[in-house]
């Protein structure tokens, strides 16, 4: 096994997922299969290869910067329109600090 159910629970914690018990066992099995396939990468010696995070092209240093000018932002009403719970133009969440 490349990954145990205990590790699956730890990762679910990191990812903020409340996996149900049946999901934990299935996830361990699926991730194990995928990680076994991924092991194939160890056949390659990459010690002299730079990591590639992004597709890059030759361009001027400022090519990705837009002009700095004023523009109308998203309105408060639009910004909170899709939130499940709002109050007075703010997002509302369960209480985090006890008085």
């Amino acid at each position: 096994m490349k990954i145990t159910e205990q590790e699956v629970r730890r990762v679910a914690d990191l990812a903020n997922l409340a996996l149900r018990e049946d999901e934990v066992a299935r996830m361990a099995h699926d991730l194990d299969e995928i990680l076994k396939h991924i092991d194939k990468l160890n056949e390659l010696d990459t010690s002299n290869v730079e990591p590639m995070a992004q597709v890059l092209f030759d361009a001027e240093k400022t090519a990705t910067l837009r002009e700095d000018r004023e523009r109308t932002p998203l309105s408060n009403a639009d910004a909170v329109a899709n939130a499940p719970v709002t109050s007075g133009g703010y997002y509302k969440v369960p209480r985090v600090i006890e008085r």
Partner: protein
Amino acid sequence: MSPLHGLTIDSIRSGLLEKKFSAEELAKQTLAYAEAENPKTNAYLTLSSERALKTAREVDAKIAKGEDPGALAGVPLAVKDVILTRGLRTTCASKLLANYIPPYDATAVIRLEQAGGVIVGKTNCDEFAMGSSNENSAFGPVRNPVALDRVPGGSSGGSAAVVAQDTAVVSLGSDTGGSIRQPASFCGITGVTPTYGRVSRYGLTAFASSLDHIGPFGKTTRDAATLLQVIAGRDEMDATSAAAPVPDYTAALDGNVKGVKIGLPSEYFDGLASDTGDRVMAAVEVLRKLGAEIVDIHLPHTAYAIAAYYIVCTAEASANLARYDGVRYTTRSAEAHTLAEMYRMTRDEGFGDECKRRIMLGAYVLSTGYYDAYYLKAQRVRNLITRDFTQAFEQVNAIVAPVSPFPAFKIGEKVNDPVAMYLSDIYTITGSLAGIPCMSVPCGRTRENLPVGLQILTRHFDETTMFRVAHAYEMAAN
């Protein structure tokens, strides 16, 4: 029969200018036909009658005044439901966003409508564009119009199906590892993944930001090229969109491929269904007869692409999908009482199995102790795969290959085997990792009468050569 049967962007334009029909009439007929036909495939999630008719009337008004109605005048088209449309529900085929109404339009959508394109509706797909069969939609799978018991491919299955079904002339999809090319090949139409950065990603729901592309579907190379022409080019809202000028793509569609050097990578012909291989090789023969020079080449790191891809894309996805936490995006678990419960339960209830698998794998490969072994390793291998292409393009102008190892499979066939599903993307993922332009063109059918796609890949920003080869083949094959 569909009101769109046999119509192209050009023929709609001349029909409008010659007053054979109005954009409003065509839009009304298309909407009625799409509503009647959609239950067969489940390709549309939302039809946008009001918006379509408004754009269509604007096109008609321009024509009446003698103004230029735009490059996509009156063309009924569809947009994948991961691309934002202001005021028009955009679900990402997820339960989490079932009622999400975007407050702004994607740049590609703005450009389509400015060119007179008529958005008929939003198309079904795999949830957050994660999948290869369109079976991961929270709103049910899409059926392939060519064979209704089979998948249309994924993740842009709906956008491919509506074009094949004649409920749209062209459509927009998104591609991260093959999500345009593979469904195009499964449904027997043309699909284009442009160079990374060629089309703005502003308003495309982020899955794996370093790999995500928006691209066109059409029945012909000319239609796909015309649509790309409209949406391509620098956008100040996306810092990764490229400043390189956009050439006139349709000028390259002259049928001439004499002397074009086309590479045939041996690694893409191992483990291919024999029927698929035969169709692709027959297409290569057509190109040879047209005067192209066929050269055997090697892309030696092909076998490592899937492993590298599923590390890079899941790592990026786990970060991008962190925003769906019950605060801003429509859905919050009713059972949650604390902040931690709100995050966890909303996400557990909202995401489907494939999204959870990818979030988990991504969080795992980025976690302490595994980052170097998995994530950095995958980025180094991504570099090797990109170098393979750079070296190959020193010898050749274009590369041709299959799109998928097999044609459209049956609904349910691979759904319980994630690794088998991932392996079906083996020939498309390499081009995605390198960020080069690649497309799928129909190249005949198997003995079971299922479409096969020919993949054409070229250098960064050389969509022109890609379209030239595709168009020349298309003309000769028909």
